[in-house]
């Protein structure tokens, strides 16, 4: 039971990490909290950045999730301390 819970938690962490990364665009760089698009000013012809707040998960998110999942799986192999009756 104890081992199963740890392994299930590891799987959940991994799925959330990879899922978040995938859903926000599978960006192969660092996490971004704002991005910009270029728009053109009609009269001057200048391309200017319009920045907007957004969350784009970077590769460190699934990587951190993988590390945490590995720790949980390793922890699941450690024997659980049993509290026996005191004599």
């Amino acid at each position: 039971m104890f081992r199963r819970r740890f392994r299930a938690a590891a799987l959940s962490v991994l799925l959330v990490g990879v899922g978040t990364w995938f859903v926000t665009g599978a960006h192969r760089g660092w996490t971004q909290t704002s991005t910009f698009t270029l728009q053109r000013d009609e009269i001057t012809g200048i391309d200017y950045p319009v920045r907007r707040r957004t969350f784009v998960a970077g590769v460190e998110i699934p990587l951190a999730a993988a590390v945490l999942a590995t720790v949980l799986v390793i922890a699941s192999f450690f024997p659980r301390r049993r509290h026996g009756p005191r004599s």
Partner: protein
Amino acid sequence: MNRSIHARYHALSLVIVLTLMASLAVVSSAVFAAPLTFDFKDPKGVNNVQFKLDAALESITGTGTGISGQVSFDPSQPAATTGRIELATKSLTVGNPMMADHLQGATWLDTAQHPTITFEVISLANVRTQANVTTAEVTGYLTVKGTKKQVKVPVSLTHLADKLGARVNKPQLKGDLLVLRTQFEINRSDYGINPGQGTDKAAEIIQLSLSIAGAAPQS
């Protein structure tokens, strides 16, 4: 008969004199036209600088919009252009919040101690004008993080006569616009920006691209 010849002679003389006067007026206005002073504090917030550094995982691309300054430009004598452009370093940012903090920090731009990056025009060379576009090689002083260096950058200047009103949606407002564009590179170590450090994370070379418009209202 004589009177008719005299009248024609006088009329012809008058035409010649008027033509000469008009030509003189055009030439003198071209020669003695005062240079226009363009203010680059843009109310529309369009003026921008974009910078890019190559890095191991991805290129770091950022933007800055805090531009101000003045340029004196005479369409008939573009080689005599002078001016100074400033960029507020606090306006520089990137998409990653940790990188943005590092960028503003003491190791990189130290924006608390050095709130502006400035470019001051010294002279123009290889000036070529075609229609309303002038291209030139501008020599100037670039000051970044307190380090002032003489640099040479390619610049294009587009003079948009009487376009100010159209730009700010006030047709009654008369005035000209000057659009300035340039792209050049600097070495961050030359300006004490985390010199020689973190080259595995961010390249030494910073690619800069500047697109700005200044306005010269007619009084």
